[in-house]
């Protein structure tokens, strides 16, 4: 399998030199990526927590963090629609996370535990939906919601968001339940537990890591979403924070400092997930990850 001794590198360069070259390139890559990833984040934080007068002092941009303030956040809450946007975001994110997770867990359980014809078709439908383009789905959903008079409602946005997050959740739970041995359930049945009780007391606790991963992915789809909200919501007071804040750059009264403060607020949940729940997230990547 190994083409040993054929390549020129193996012949003329000692393994120690190679190891050294590799070490240096490893550290260099790590450093470059770390800089590439962290600079935008640093810039966001610096602008958000510095007074605007410090950031834009003397015609150049100062990002050295020599004074600290919350005034940008105060302005954001008093002068813009941010409180309302955040409230809307919280409502649709919470409801669609709940709905998508419940749906995924139920479907995942059913799809693994019951035999039926057309399993291949079901799997393909789920995967197809998982690869689908949100904007292509958004257009007909808009027309349908318009016809039903449901535009500008939490219900419509919740449904649309669940539409794009649930396929991956279902796929994840489907795979997850396959790793939960049915013997666990069988032994509970033998000891006289009903199927429903087994479900609550045996299956769901064992499936908790998968459920949390599903919830995290559904949460980030909903929290992140711009496309569906842009299409379904047309009134300012119904905008989630992503759509509401996207209009900041066009408004002369709102500067970079408040805009970055809004960005920091939107980054808080992802930040918390990255810090505290990353293992669940990585588990999700083992079955494919999400858009």
């Amino acid at each position: 399998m190994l083409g040993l001794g054929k390549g020129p590198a193996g012949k003329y360069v000692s393994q120690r030199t190679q190891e050294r070259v590799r070490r240096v390139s490893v550290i260099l890559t790590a450093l470059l990526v770390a800089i590439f990833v962290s600079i935008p984040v640093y810039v966001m934080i610096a602008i958000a927590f510095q007074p605007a007068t410090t950031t834009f002092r003397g015609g150049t941009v100062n990002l050295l963090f020599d004074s600290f303030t919350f005034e940008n956040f105060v302005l954001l809450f008093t002068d813009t629609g941010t409180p309302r946007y955040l409230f809307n975001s919280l409502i649709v994110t919470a409801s669609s996370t709940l709905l998508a997770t419940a749906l995924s867990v139920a479907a995942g359980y059913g799809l693994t535990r019951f035999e039926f014809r057309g399993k291949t078709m079901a799997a393909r439908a789920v995967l197809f939906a998982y690869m689908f383009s949100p904007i292509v789905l958004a257009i007909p959903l808009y027309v349908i919601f318009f016809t039903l008079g449901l535009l500008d409602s939490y219900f419509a946005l919740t449904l649309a968001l669940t539409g794009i997050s649930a396929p991956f959740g279902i796929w994840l739970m489907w795979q997850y339940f396959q790793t939960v041995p049915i013997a666990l359930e069988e032994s509970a049945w033998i000891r006289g537990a009903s199927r429903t009780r087994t479900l609550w007391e045996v299956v769901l606790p064992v499936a908790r890591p998968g459920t949390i991963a599903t919830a995290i992915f559904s949460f980030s789809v909903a929290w992140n979403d711009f496309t569906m909200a842009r299409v379904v919501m047309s009134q300012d007071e119904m905008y989630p924070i992503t759509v509401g804040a996207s209009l900041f750059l066009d408004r002369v009264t709102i500067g970079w400092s408040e805009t970055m403060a809004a960005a920091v607020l939107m980054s808080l949940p992802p930040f918390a997930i990255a810090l505290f729940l990353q293992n669940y997230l990585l588990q999700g990547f083992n079955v494919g990850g999400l858009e």
Partner: protein
Amino acid sequence: MSAVSTLQGRLAEFDEKRLLLLATFVPFTLFFVLVWGVPIGYALGMSLFSDPTGAAEFAAFANYAGVLTSELFSTALFNSVVYALSSTILSLVLGLGLALVVNREITGGNALRTMMIFPYLLPTLVVIFMWTFLLDPNVGAVNQFLLDYGLVQEPLAFFSSTQWAMPAVVVASVWKYGSFAFFILLARLQAIDPNLYERARVEGASTWQAFRDITVPHLRGAILIIILVRGIWMFNKFDIIYLATRGGPLDATTTLPIMVYELAFRGSPNFGGATALAGIMFMLLAAVAVVYFWVFEPEQEVAN
């Protein structure tokens, strides 16, 4: 034990099983029918009518012909391909490079991994705020850097020049989506038996040979999946491009998803055209999905 109570037990068991069956399959089926089947069918239907939301009149494939022959379509298709290819390949290179690095268990590898999760979870809008600021011609750090080192004479308006808008959108996209490839490849790398490398080293294989003959074959499947799935997603990407440039300047970053949105919501709405274009994108996706199912058989993972 009487026969009656056994029968009752069986019936109860049967009912419960049926109830569970209903509880799991009804929501699943309803979901797919209502949120996927109906809208897609509805869109395909609408695409056959002229002015489907107003005085609808059956027009067969006139909408499709209109979209396909419009000048914007070829531009948008070209832009979609350029955007999807460049952002997918760059994310893959970045993800692969970093996965190889973190897999070496260097100091700070875990911190790097945590750091990589963050861009992936950040709302697209936040990513665009950051890059709009960094690439701004007046206040942006990138332009200041370029000017200071004499690399450019005039600041570059990245997002609003026809020449630089696409590269700028690609950079922002790679920043956000690069970690997707990273996490998948890292998981594959960590699943490779370390003894393979040990044996190769003992037998005198060079680093390059070990990489070519051990690492690459183990990653091949994952790389193909990333190119395929990431490629589809980037081809269909709407939000990051729309937020960065609205498809401009002069359609320089108008991809097919942007064109769908413009047809449906800009100026005088043309839902016939928009749904026809959505139908075309649907068929493109279906074609790719057929290849995906045929080559990779992903359904084997659950339906065996």
